[in-house]
């Protein structure tokens, strides 16, 4: 059975001013609205999860946000740049090749042709109990993320807990962007602001982004790194379609090591290690691997058993390190 709600208005503003006016109007009238860029995350959710939308705001009319620019040492990526365009863009391939790789590892060619980089860093957290069939919803009590009162993964969870929902973070591009210290510009009814990408992500699986109602991401800015090497490795049973069961980005700057993780917790994990604190490089790798494994909250909500996913963390970190060191030679 399809729950697809079809009786909402579809609006497509063509400028940021127009967008802001619409948002203000809807807020004043108390209307429910949702944003969609490529729609590849939002529309399937509309089909499977109950919603009471009044307005469906497509961001695809904002042409200014669909480009990649370079200014000196800074690359600026419009949030509506599709993952296909990003993965094949000359500037990105030249200066940020690992970002191109990560973008290429998202879903399938068809989805990447529609899905945007803004959408991928905003992609909603997932859990087998929320991204589930209509009938299974009837069978189970609704969970916190479905406005219910239970968590099927953590039975003891209660309202008021710091982390109510364990739905996991699944963006492929975020780990690489985080290690590149990306900044994002956000506009909304109260004007524009720029924050570190890391500040976008919150601990709880329900409201997992720090955007205010009516805010959208417009651009992602990255300083082109010097003397660094990155690697992104994704765990998925197929080479297409799947969300990461685990994703590990590794960056080596000088002799220091940074990693960023996806697919393991309600938000991405970022860890840095300074080589001066360790006797050997290998010690540093083991220490950061231990931190990463402690960070992992692998509930059974994936194709792979939890123990396996956890055990792959050090393997993937080591692969990233090995690959970077090999490239440097």
């Amino acid at each position, binding site marked *: *059975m*399809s*729950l697809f709600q*079809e009786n909402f208005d579809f609006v497509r503003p063509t400028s940021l001013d127009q967008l802001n006016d619409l948002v203000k109007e809807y807020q004043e009238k108390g209307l429910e609205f949702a944003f969609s860029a490529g729609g590849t995350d939002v529309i399937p959710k509309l089909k499977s999860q109950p919603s009471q939308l009044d307005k469906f705001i497509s961001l695809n009319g904002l042409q200014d946000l669909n480009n990649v620019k370079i200014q000196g040492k800074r690359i600026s990526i419009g949030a509506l740049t599709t993952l296909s365009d990003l993965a094949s863009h000359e500037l990105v391939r030249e200066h940020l090749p690992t970002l191109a790789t990560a973008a290429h590892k998202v879903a*399938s060619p068809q989805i990447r042709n529609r899905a945007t980089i803004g959408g991928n860093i905003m992609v909603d957290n997932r859990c*087998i109990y929320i*991204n*589930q*069939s*209509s*009938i*299974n919803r*009837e*069978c189970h009590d609704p969970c916190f993320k479905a406005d219910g009162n239970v968590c099927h993964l953590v039975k003891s969870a209660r309202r008021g807990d710091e982390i109510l929902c364990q739905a996991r973070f699944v963006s492929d591009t975020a780990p690489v962007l985080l290690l590149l210290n990306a900044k994002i510009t956000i506009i909304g009814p109260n004007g524009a602001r720029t924050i570190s990408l890391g500040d976008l992500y919150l601990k709880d699986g329900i409201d997992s982004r720090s955007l205010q109602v009516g805010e959208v991401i417009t651009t992602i800015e990255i300083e082109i790194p010097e003397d660094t090497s990155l690697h992104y490795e994704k*765990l998925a*049973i*197929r*080479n*297409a*379609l*799947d969300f990461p069961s685990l994703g590990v980005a590794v960056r080596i700057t000088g002799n220091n090591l940074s990693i960023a993780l996806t697919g393991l917790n309600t938000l991405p994990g970022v860890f840095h290690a300074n080589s001066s604190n360790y006797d050997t490089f290998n010690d540093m790798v083991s220490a950061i691997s231990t931190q990463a494994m402690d960070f992992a909250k692998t509930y059974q909500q994936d*194709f*792979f*058993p939890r*123990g*396996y996913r956890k*055990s*792959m963390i050090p*393997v993937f970190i080591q692969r990233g390190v090995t690959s970077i060191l090999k490239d440097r030679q």
Partner: protein
Amino acid sequence: MAKAPDFGYKIIGKPVPLIDSRAKVMGQALYTDDIRLHNPLIIKILRSPHPSANIISLDTNDALNLDGVKGVLTGADFKNTFGVLTISKDEPAIARDVVRYEGEPVAAVAAETEDIAIKALALIKVEYELTEGVYDSKKALKPTEHPLHPELGKENNLHKNVVQEFGDMERGFADADVVVEKRFRFASINHAFTEPHATQVEIDNQGNITVYSATQVPHYLHMAMAEVLEIPQHNIRIVKPHLGGGFGGKSDPFPHEMIAAKFALDLGRNTRLKFSREEVFFSHHGRHQTDLTMKLGFSKDKGITALGLNTLIDGGAYGSFGIVTTYYNGVLLQGPYKVPNFRFHVDRLYTNKPMCGAMRGHGGVNPRFASEVLLDMACAETGLDPAETRLSMIHKENTLTTNEYRVTSVGLRSGLTEAIKRTNWHEKHGKLPFGKGIGVACGFFISGSALPIHWNKLPASTVRITIDHDAGVTVYSGATDIGQGSDTMLAQMAAEVLGQPLENIKVISADTRTTPVDLGSYSSRVTFMAGNASRNAAIRMRRLLVEAACELLEMIPPNYDRPDKPDNFFRQGGRKPDFEQGFLGPNPDYADGFIFEDGLIRSEKHNASVTFLEAVEKALEFEGILQTSGTYRAPKMGGKFKGSGAGLSPSYSFTAFIVEVTVDPETGFIKVDKATCAHDCGMPLNPLAVNGQIEGCIHMGLGQALMEEMVYDNGATQNPSFLEYKIPSAFEQPEVDIVPCYSDDSEGPFGAKEAGEGILAPIIPAIANAVYDAVGIRLTQLPMRPDRVLSALEREKKRGEKS
């Protein structure tokens, strides 16, 4: 690339695109849900959210009172249960009082729009009393006071038990140099066809209904529907439009088909229904979850000395094809090698899960995995080469197996020999670096079930051919093209015999009003049976045209009154010939002294010819219409013991795979690098279609081998979507090398056998055997997920440290 030997045929054996491929690629082919009937009611099904419950009350009043709702059906509206097999008609169209699986229909709504229908479903109030379900086949064997099907009068949830024993097992194992035994477990998997189930029903002003449905078996649907709706069959016409894949998953009559037809009859309105992908997974009918223990005795000199297995298959809530599946879990092990002493014990259990049924390779796939892995182990223990050993053990032509199947043509030996050569097997096996491996496995499958599901004496397939006054040839057949290309195959038969270009042959198929009965697309029967029928109808047509040509040319027509090819033991299974008068035996020779080509019918002896059109016009003078029929029926075969008919087929196909893999010992990922296939399908009628079947089987086998799995949590389907149910993507498909492999089957049409199912089974154990060659582990559980590979590697490491 599959390749056919050159027998001088013009169309047979040539790689021709399927006749409907252009329409499909251009988006012009109409699938069931593409048909636009006038003003249909939209039907939605309310499904149980509980796998095991009693329905205490069901209130449909609010739904019925909703504006735009035209009708509501519940279990009380259907008296008769149904099932594809006459011996297990245990499924209601809508659950009555009891629900047995999550997703079972409990009510249905017909409304003017989809929105209204969905709203109405929410207004139906069902009060359930949850009952204790059984979700595991071992538990289902235990006695219970509340079996799923109390009408069977059993004390547990056993649906069917089959035990067959041949020879002397004890002596067989005593004769062995090595005895290997293992327990194997297999997840249930889904067909994952592209087109979800859909049905539309058109009703005329006399109450006749035309049912357009995505089905593999119009004939069985026809019979089941007449019984469930309690109307004569002639009031029902079943039409199968273009179909987007079946793989066995559309070979049962389904509840939704009954529901859509019932609404049309009750309300006098056209109806329309289609499944979401979720509903496809809830309906399932896929491969049984299987738990089997197998023991193989092997002698260096004699080959397999004994094979025994004990198997539990989890059937889910209803019977479906399950009884056949139960037999096939045993009997299909009678090839491709001689098994002199053989015993199997298979139990099919009812559980509170969506039912399992027929799926490509039906019942034979999982035991094949076990036997081919055990054979590999036996070879490893005795130091024999697993490819050469298999080569030496393949059935010889014209063999009677231990359970009395007559095996006629066998073309695999040359194919496997070539595959060994092409893959450089001897340079690779056991010699590749750690992590790289090569493995081999063989398979065997029926080329159509010799016996019908509903016992009768009618031909297994009948084909009618007509030629219009404009010389256009039309082939009418009940055979169901489900994407495998059977329409093209029927056209090829007629085109070859009548010397016409393929595009001059029109095919009308799978319409119970206009086409003669064919039993449907299952058990890989269509090429063999409908193919023979089409060929025979074309031969009869050819005779009419030759007679007309002779009259025009003032020649004496050829004398057809000569005996068919001599019978021999293997043709008739040791029994008396059963050729009725006028019945053209399989594969009759049609040489008649005339050549049909270039629009002419030319006498070979005399330098004289008429045009095809002139002959048609002359022939039409007699009757006004030009029409012939051809039939196929399997010869009488088989042993005289109970259950001897299971797996009986007029011919058998043989397959070998050599697979090369890379195993990552750190992550446990298996990458299949290359699959080399030799498949003996007799004469490859259309090498392009054979290639497609081989590539498709590799893809499907890869899925079951590495990732596909229906996940249930106490009966609740956990992954009813193509995101969470993992089918391999194009990236996982390996390089494929198809080795020429053929035999000339004496009874297959132009020597052909099946190419649709048998290919699937051996690819899976070939992967497992290649993994053993790569990293030294025996995987016994499907899918062979990376975590299972790692666990096995750790166990192997510990074992190595101990010893």
